[in-house]
């Protein structure tokens, strides 16, 4: 069943990344990044010409990266370091906040990919998971004692609600794929729009905070929020959340690598028939993979509500779509999701700096995102280039990417 619909691209993609050495994978990601930066620079030059402002791509990327960490380097003077810079600053908080959310979203996409499923619906799972967590916390918080005990009870509860709702919403395209053979790429895209529309309707009609004009729920009580411990309270970043994200990464890595569920998931992704002979129930595997993926997306949404906004409001940023980029850049490897998320965290964290300091629209980051995926999609081009430059592909690469059967 799973090898009937668009199987080949996804499978070949999978085979490529699994069959190749980790080193080659990393090299290709880096080559794609560099190419994306070069092409984006050309676009920036053209855009500068168009708008009559002289954009300097080198300066833009320097300010972007520097700004993401709160400007540790003094770019304007001969001094190397900015005086009085501390690693705990607002921009660093923004960068790490984005990184945290992207780790969960990236893991969600990666888990599905490992099972040969393309979950474009993380955005929808995230929207509903975040809404459910916010509503549940607003309702439950009055019945729970305050202080540390309250936080220890409410924060895991909120994340759990997000995971359950996100997981259930992920199970829908899973079940449609498993039992009705409906293509998950299409259904998840449709479900994204449905989730956003439904959440908007629910909040505007029933759950809106009556004191506000906007489509926003009542505020999550402070005791149930993921607040800053070391980083400033207003920075919307909690170190606890980042630690949870890193733990989740290790957890997903462990489950995929060392448990029988993970084995079934990977094998049904790679070799559906083999998994069947091994006793795995293919249909149920598809549903559970999508549920796990959706649950991770739901947690990302809950984090957004509990850490960033302190409520749920309309206009959820496209963390779910960025998760696809992160996962693809990471070669769908859970551990690789961490550096890939950090990279996109830096891009987001630094986008304000290029806007304020240089007047470059922060939407440039979305252009970079597209370019990175574009070049990641063509490993063969880099391999050809590598051959021409005399870098021989590893043995594993030859069997993995070259001659298919």
């Amino acid at each position, binding site marked *: 069943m799973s090898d009937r*619909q668009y199987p080949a*691209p996804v499978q070949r993609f999978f085979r490529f990344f699994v069959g190749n050495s980790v080193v080659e994978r990393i090299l290709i990601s880096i080559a794609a990044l560099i190419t994306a930066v070069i092409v984006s620079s050309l676009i920036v030059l053209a855009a500068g010409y168009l708008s009559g402002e002289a954009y300097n791509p080198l300066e833009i990327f320097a300010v972007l990266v520097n700004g993401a960490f709160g400007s540790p380097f003094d770019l304007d003077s001969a001094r190397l370091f900015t005086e009085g810079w501390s690693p705990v600053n607002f921009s660093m908080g923004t960068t790490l906040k984005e990184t945290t959310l992207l780790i969960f979203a990236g893991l969600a996409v990666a888990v599905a990919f490992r099972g040969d499923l393309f979950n474009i619906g993380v955005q929808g799972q995230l929207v509903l998971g975040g809404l459910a967590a916010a509503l549940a916390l607003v309702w439950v918080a009055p019945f729970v004692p305050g202080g540390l005990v309250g936080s220890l009870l409410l924060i895991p509860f909120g994340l759990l609600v997000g995971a359950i709702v996100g997981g259930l919403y992920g199970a829908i395209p899973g079940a449609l794929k498993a039992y009705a053979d409906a293509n998950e790429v299409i259904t998840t895209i449709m479900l994204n729009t449905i989730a956003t529309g439904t959440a908007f309707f629910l909040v505007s009609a029933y759950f809106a905070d009556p004191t506000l004009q906007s489509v926003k729920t009542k505020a999550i009580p402070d005791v149930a929020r993921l607040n800053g411990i070391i980083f400033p309270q207003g920075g919307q970043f909690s170190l606890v959340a980042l630690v949870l994200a890193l733990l989740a990464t290790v957890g997903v890595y462990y489950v995929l690598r060392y448990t029988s569920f993970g084995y079934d998931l990977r094998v049904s992704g790679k070799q559906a028939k083999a998994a069947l002979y091994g006793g795995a129930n293919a249909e149920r595997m598809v549903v559970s993979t999508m549920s796990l993926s959706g649950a991770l997306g739901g947690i990302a949404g809950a984090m957004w509500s509990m850490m960033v906004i302190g409520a749920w409001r309309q206009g959820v940023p496209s963390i779910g779509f960025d998760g696809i980029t992160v996962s693809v850049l990471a070669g769908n490897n859970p551990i690789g999701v961490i550096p890939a998320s950090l990279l996109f965290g830096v891009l987001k964290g630094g986008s304000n700096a290029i806007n304020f300091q240089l007047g470059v629209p922060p939407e440039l*980051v979305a252009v970079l995102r597209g370019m990175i995926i574009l070049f990641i999609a063509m490993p063969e081009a880099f391999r050809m280039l590598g051959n021409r430059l005399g870098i021989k592909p590893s043995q594993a690469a030859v069997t993995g990417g070259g001659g298919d059967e």
Partner: protein
Amino acid sequence: MSNAPADRSALGSVRNWIANIGRIPRLVIGALLASMFVGAMINVLMPGTRPATVAGIFNVSFVESTLRISVPIVFAGLGGIFAEKSGVINIGLEGLLIISAFTAVAVTHLLGGDAQSAVWIGLFAGVLASTFLALVFAVLVIEFRADQIIAGLAIWLVGLGLGPFLSIVIWGSVNSASISTLNTVTVPGLSQIPVLGPIIFDASPIVILMLVTIVVSWFVLNHTSFGRWIEASGENPSSLDTAGVNVHRVRYVGVVLSGVLSGFGGAGLVVGRAGRFIGSGQTMIAGDGFIAITTYLFGNYNPLGTAAAGILFAGLDALQIRLQQIAFIPAPSELIRLVPYVSVIIVLAFVGYTRIPSEVGEHYESGEE
């Protein structure tokens, strides 16, 4: 479709299509036609009542706005057929629509924004931009054997990134300034025909072009050797190779055609109706490219069925806009807006698996390597 030579086979094809479109789509279309008929009857028999108000929605201007709304979906859906039948799934249709819509507005704006000639040049500039992006996609998947899904996704994200970014560069906002739209074309005489006259012969040139493209696509795919090559390229490329036709070239043409047609869809949307580019959120295209993919799965790769599905979705959208204006209908507009998306899922759940060309997604390497 009253042109004499193709008449008989056209009729046969319609019958064929109705036979192989599947039970659920047939029911949906049947129900729609029946409700239109009932609506007309109610309107005639009990004018002035509430049912008549609802039935009054289905008038000539409803059909006109449905056709205008269907432009991006139908063009992209037709383009998607050419790409996917040739063996390359183009999931990046959405990105092609975005880039062509943006380029059309930008070029028209830079040429002054008012003159009809500027709008026409903008239209073709949009088509050119989309075609170029589709060519990049084709090189990626055909030359560099990129994964088709990932590369298509990249095309979408490139469009989604470039449109709003360049809008800010030009207009200082993700939304553009307004431009003129194309004047309506009125065919003297024919536009006097009741009902059909104003719909087809007193319409935006983009709508007329769309109706012509539907028929031409159908003819090309079913009655020319190029159509057979496209089909063989997706179903059995090695036999096409054996017959002496270059599979890569056929696939290039298929993918580039998807760019050309999507270009008319995206650019046609802005020069025919919208008159500006909106880049906030998912941009003004808002998923039309993905709905287009569903329409050709729904229409079983037949241009007539695909166009019917596209017009159906557009009709739901037009209906939703009109229902909002009727005071006594309590349904919230946010939910009615979701009807097309929900129906796509229901349709996919019931129709389930559409038989896609067997070699879609497979890279083809001819033996001579």
